[in-house]
């Protein structure tokens, strides 16, 4: 419980950093760190398979995509950057305040009801769950990936080319 609380607090803080940092590259790295923390939480909760996915796909693949997008888009000149930064600070300064306020409100109110939890599931093996019970989800995943392939083919093509 103690460890879990620390991890959750860290999760909030790191994602806050990812959102607030002025540099896009740092934001991408912050997001990868958030994913890594989420992985640890999942592991703590006893969900190692999902944790592996989170680590490899979100912390790995998505970060690669993000970093390449950041590197493909050019940086602003320093003067422009500083100007933007000032306006950013003005706009984002309220976020930590908002978070603190929300936290304070939620800490004062207790859970207004008792949770009524269902009976535990008979199937505890993820593989059985995914491959036998929820096979249709796998089919959906394949279709989503196919759409992603089309997306890469169409969107990452250079500027508009004429003809086939």
């Amino acid at each position, binding site marked *: 419980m103690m460890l879990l609380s620390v991890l959750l607090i860290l999760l909030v803080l790191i994602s806050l950093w990812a959102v607030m940092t002025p540099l896009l590259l740092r934001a991408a790295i912050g997001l990868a760190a958030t994913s890594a923390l989420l992985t640890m939480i999942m592991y703590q909760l006893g969900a190692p398979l999902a944790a592996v996915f989170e680590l490899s796909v979100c912390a790995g693949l998505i970060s690669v995509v993000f970093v390449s997008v950041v590197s493909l888009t050019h940086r602003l000149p320093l003067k422009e950057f500083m100007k933007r930064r000032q306006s950013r600070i003005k706009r984002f300064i309220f976020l930590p305040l908002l978070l603190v306020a929300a936290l304070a409100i939620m800490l004062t109110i207790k859970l207004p009801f008792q949770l009524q939890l269902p009976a535990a599931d008979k199937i505890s093996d993820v593989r059985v769950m995914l491959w036998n019970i929820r096979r*249709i989800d796998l089919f959906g995943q394949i279709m989503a990936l196919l759409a992603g392939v*089309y*997306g890469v083919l*169409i969107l990452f093509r250079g500027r508009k080319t004429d003809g086939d």
Partner: protein
Amino acid sequence: MTYLLLFIPFAILILINLFPREKRTEPAFWLGLAVLVFQAGAVVASQFGYWGTILTSQLESVFGFNLQLYKMGHVLVMASALAGATALLVARATLKNKRDRFNFVGLLLVSLIGINGIAMVTDIFTLYIFIEVTALATFILIMLNREQAAFEGAFKYLIMSVVATVLMLAAVSLFILIGGGTSFLDVKMAVISDPLAYTALLLFLCGLFIKGGMVPFHGWLPDAYSSAPTAVSVWLAGIVTKASGIYALIRLMVIFGGLEPLQNIMLTVGAASIVIGALAALGQKELKRLLAYSSISQMGYIVIALGSGTVLGIFAALFHFFNHTLFKATLFANVAAVEEQTGTQEMEKLGGLAQKMPITGLTSAIASLSTAGLPPLSGFWSKLLIIIALWISGHYFFAAVAVLASVVTLAYFLLLQRQAFFGLVPAALKEVREAGPILLIPAVFLSLLIVVIGLVFPFMIQMVLR
């Protein structure tokens, strides 16, 4: 049959990619059309109980999917076949680049699989997956031409779609927490017994409202519709947003229809969509944007019918759902024809096209009047049934809203007709001629359906309502 509806498009999707690069566009078109014809044929055949016995039993052992196709799903599958065929034909006529045409067929098949999945799901998380698959294919379809505006439209759609995802998945996790499962049966048990699960259901409905573009969740819809290539607009307006938002709503309302507060939400959201969509459409200057707002308004009719909480209301909602596919696909096909022949879709630059393009003018008039709910066209019957359903269930105010908004509907369509199809022909359009047969075939076919259904329906109603 349930498996075939997923696997035949999938197999064709693989097949068209196996052709050599230079020769694949034509076969892709014809195979795509064949899939849609199969869909329509399957629905008709299943009415006679033909498919269930022959093929399903053998396939069942191979794929253990939890899918079921109810009678309701037939409407969606049929509508998607009609809208898809129209979109394919329009794409063939309007997309100039061969590669674009090929990719269009592929993405259409992906989203078709998503829609067929939506028609058959029995699990709320699987429903989300198929909605997302449809949406993913649609983002890419919108950017098919990679026009400047399309990036804006697609990005807005994507952002709102992720917001919807967040709402829906939060709901799913609450269902897991309380119901211990995500199948419709588990969800129903949880919602009846626990207020937290009930809140989760509301969150899920909000997600569906975003996907279906209901007021005030509709911000992305006009931009996405009007920035997409017209062939994609046919597909988007004809079926995609309706399948992923509205059909899922109908499905959930069939399961949870008895809950009083849900009906109030449906009525309020529906009425807001009807009124705001219609009023906004009145002020539009582009054909596609006008049709987009009109879609919002028409979706409002479907949702308000769900709010009546009666069987007649749900039947009316499904009927209007189907009718909307008919007339919106016709109208977008007409827009494609106009755009193809004149090079613009801004109403101020158009005029007098009924003289130059008589068939396009006539079909668009039929479709517009059907949208406005004028007899003897099919739109009249669905609107009438919606109003009757509202009236019978005692929602007089909402019935009045529905009736009055149809006046505004009429107004903006008359405006459209006057600016685009009647009046004087501008000097720039003197040389305009009727569009080619590829664009006319779907428009004529669909408007014939509108008229025939409108004329036949009064004699069918006893049979249908039973």
